């Protein structure tokens, strides 16, 4: 304890020259960073800049190749997350590791190093949740909780260890704006207690708002230490990317034309206890239009995508109509042949097979629509034609890859996503349905993907974008509808849409209620 007091004036954490190699790639290259007590410190960087690697080394999940970590002035070796927790470093991950079938308290209990009775854990969790403004019922089953509530479990789980440094990995990426505000209040409270926070994010406005200092990484190196409040969003973005990110150009939509994708009274029962059932979804996407579907993750977007894409068939043929024809009883190949194209949320394992090459992955979604080009008689694959098309797509979308035709898993997330989107754009589809087009994708690739979607719609196609990223939807959509608990609101034209309005709908306000609430404010 005395050591802690003596050091109160100094840094809590002092990292020098931390380096990590993966093969020949320097994921982290001599990173220096200090965190003071009671500071919210932002770690900024594109995907692949080395943020996760760095944080994993702090949390004991990876071992550094070189460099030192000083904790309260003492050099330490953190060999496992257990070590990190003992030192007083806690982490809240972006992807939660919770068991749906257990209660919040049971989940917390499982993660404790020293076993404690469930009742005691629940009581302590309730105490913490009240103290830090994180409303949570410890006895609720995780499967019934919203993403925001699940995140609170993770935060409480972390706080139970009484950490002095809390690492938060992209905490707001799954929250509504209102939920995010509440999280910021909690963070302020933690900071007031003298705890430090390492805040990983790519949302620059947020970082400017709550962080005291920022460290910007690019390609594994520290580019700058700065005070984010003195920077502008675009100057921060420039540091992250290295040059100006091209702003996406959008034109006014022309007068409404024919509906190319229609969904009529689509309902679907939940297939398993933790799936969301869809009820009475109506929607039309017109030629030349980009329609966005906002919503917090886990509100039925995945189920909706499966239904629209034809991975799951509908009972009524007219529940889904493509280019004026009933498609509800057509499977995904049938819908593709009608002119639609689909990009699911998960890249590896859904959109692409990880261990197959890019050209095989091209065949994956286009073996039926382009049978004439890619197959000869008896279903023999024309490898040359497929490889040529794959190369064309990689060039068009600027997919950076090692080797001529690497396995999908060898590409970075952003590059694979560019390929997966480009694979569909290459067909110039009349209807394009994309789920989370830029999830986990670096800023440069995201801008390119968004521009490509807008260009597709300008060419007269209908584009439906399901996304959790409100900034993205406001950037590219002509109208935004909100999905909540398997229901879809009426689309709000972009001219009338505001973050508050969409945010309230995401939080579950009824559409008619959203307006007066705003007016009252």
């Amino acid at each position, binding site marked *: 304890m005395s050591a802690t007091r003596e050091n109160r004036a100094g840094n809590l954490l002092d990292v020098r020259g931390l380096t990590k190699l993966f093969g020949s790639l320097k994921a982290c290259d001599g990173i220096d960073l200090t965190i003071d007590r009671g500071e919210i410190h932002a770690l900024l960087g594109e995907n692949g800049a080395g943020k996760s690697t760095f944080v994993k080394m702090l949390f004991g999940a990876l071992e550094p190749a070189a460099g030192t970590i000083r904790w309260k002035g003492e*050099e330490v070796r953190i060999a496992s997350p257990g070590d990190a927790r003992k030192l007083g470093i806690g982490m809240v991950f972006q992807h939660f590791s919770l068991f749906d079938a257990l209660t919040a308290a049971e989940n917390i209990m499982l993660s404790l190093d020293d076993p404690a009775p469930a009742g005691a854990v629940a009581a302590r969790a309730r105490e913490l949740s009240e103290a830090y403004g994180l409303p949570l019922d410890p006895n609720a089953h995780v499967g019934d909780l919203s993403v925001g509530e699940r995140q609170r479990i993770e935060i409480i789980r972390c706080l139970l260890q009484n950490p002095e440094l809390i690492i938060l990995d992209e905490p707001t990426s799954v929250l509504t704006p209102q939920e995010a505000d509440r999280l910021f209040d909690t963070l302020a409270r933690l900071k007031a207690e003298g705890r430090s926070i390492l805040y990983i994010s790519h949302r620059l406005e947020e970082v400017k708002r709550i962080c005291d200092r920022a460290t910007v990484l690019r390609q594994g190196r520290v580019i700058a230490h700065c005070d984010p409040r003195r920077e502008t969003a675009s100057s921060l973005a420039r540091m992250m990317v290295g040059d100006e990110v091209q702003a996406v150009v959008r034109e006014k939509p022309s007068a409404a034309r024919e509906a190319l994708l229609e969904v009529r009274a689509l309902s679907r029962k939940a297939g398993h206890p933790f799936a969301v059932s869809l009820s009475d979804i109506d929607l039309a996407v017109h030629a030349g239009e980009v329609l966005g579907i906002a919503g917090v993750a886990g509100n039925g977007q995945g189920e909706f995508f499966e239904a629209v894409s034809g991975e799951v068939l509908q009972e009524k043929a007219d529940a889904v109509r493509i280019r004026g024809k009933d498609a509800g009883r057509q499977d995904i190949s049938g819908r*593709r042949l009608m002119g639609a194209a689909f990009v699911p949320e998960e890249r590896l394992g859904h959109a692409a*097979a*990880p261990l197959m090459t890019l050209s095989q992955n091209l*065949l994956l979604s286009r073996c039926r629509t382009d049978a004439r080009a890619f197959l000869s008689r008896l279903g023999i*694959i024309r490898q040359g034609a497929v490889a040529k098309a794959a190369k064309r797509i990689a060039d068009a979308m600027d997919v950076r890859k090692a080797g001529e035709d690497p396995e999908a898993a060898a590409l970075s997330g952003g590059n694979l996503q560019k390929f997966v989107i480009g694979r569909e754009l290459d067909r110039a589809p009349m209807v394009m349905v994309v789920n989370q087009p830029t999830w986990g994708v670096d800023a440069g690739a995201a801008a390119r993907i968004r521009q490509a979607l807008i260009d597709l719609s300008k060419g007269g196609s209908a584009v439906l974008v399901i996304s959790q990223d409100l900034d993205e939807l406001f950037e590219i959509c002509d109208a935004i509808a909100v999905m909540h608990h398997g229901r879809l609101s009426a689309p709000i034209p972009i001219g009338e849409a505001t973050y508050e309005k969409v945010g309230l709908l995401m939080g579950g306000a009824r559409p008619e209620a959203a307006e007066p609430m705003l007016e009252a404010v």
Partner: protein
Amino acid sequence: MRVELVKRPQQSALFSALSPFIALLLTLLAGAVMFLFLGKNPADALYYFFIEPLLETWSLHELAVKAAPLILIGVGLSICYLSNNWNIGAEGQFIIGAIAGSILPVAFPGFQSPIVLPLMLLMGIVGGAAYAGIPAWLKARFGTNEILTSLMLVYVAQLFLDWLVRGPWRNPEGFNFPETRNFHAYAVLPEIWPASGRAHWGFVFAILAALVLWFVLSRTLKGFEVKLIGQSPRAGRFAGFSRSRMIIFAFLVSGALAGLAGISEVSGAIGQLRPAISPGYGFTAIIVAFLGRLNPLGIIAAGLVLALSYLGGEAAQISIGVSDKVARAFQGMLLFFVLACDTLIHYRIRISRRVVAAKPIKAPAGHA
């Protein structure tokens, strides 16, 4: 202390290629140790086991006779395993194929014509496929575990054959031995080169089947579908391929080939039905499929290696007087080493001690 398998970030291409050979080498070493414990000279034993059978023309023919069913079944199983369908019941499909194919010569011995043999082969194929269709349908329709159902059906087939040859199909002129009548001349699968040995056309079927399936797997959309559904079922569904149709397809193909192997064996090598017509070909073929890395061309080589273990077992029994169970032991060791080599290519072993505390490397001066 705890032993863990940790996934390697990347696999060595060199060792992936070498792995079957390393497994063979390790099997030979372990075999030498086994012979040593049996009180035999390991060098002699291995010579009789693995070299001697390759020195005579007639025994090369025997090698082909044993390899034919192993390769036929093995390539069929490769389709199943690549598409993530764990058909363990090839032995039963082999037996039912043999029974279905034997209906004509056994139940209708008077029907003698050149068309009998093609009909028999066809019925063997259909019988094996239909029998494999049972676990396939159960899996596609009800989601049953195909490992259990296909395996259990093996015992059903074995007992059914036993009942047939002791009961309704017993040879009326056979002095009550549990055997059917001998197949007539039109019902016998001919030898390839009758002058030099017993190898019959089953071996040709095996090579043809392997070549065709190799082409299908590596060059056609169907092969792509098989591998895609096996590797990532969700991506397979996204591609528009049906998982349940693939289950049926994979089982039917492997059942058909096992059935063809069965009827080829009885009409080519044995000439009648007996209570035991297979020394475990259907199970050994699982080893063949994996030793051949689920690649039909590799399976040809693997089939020959495993066939040699059968011949070696017989030879060693005669020359040095060890039990023919030694052959089974060899096959078991081979499968063990193949799987172990593959596992170590994908994973490395980490031995970690339980207590790893955060240790300060050095305590700065002034600290208690």
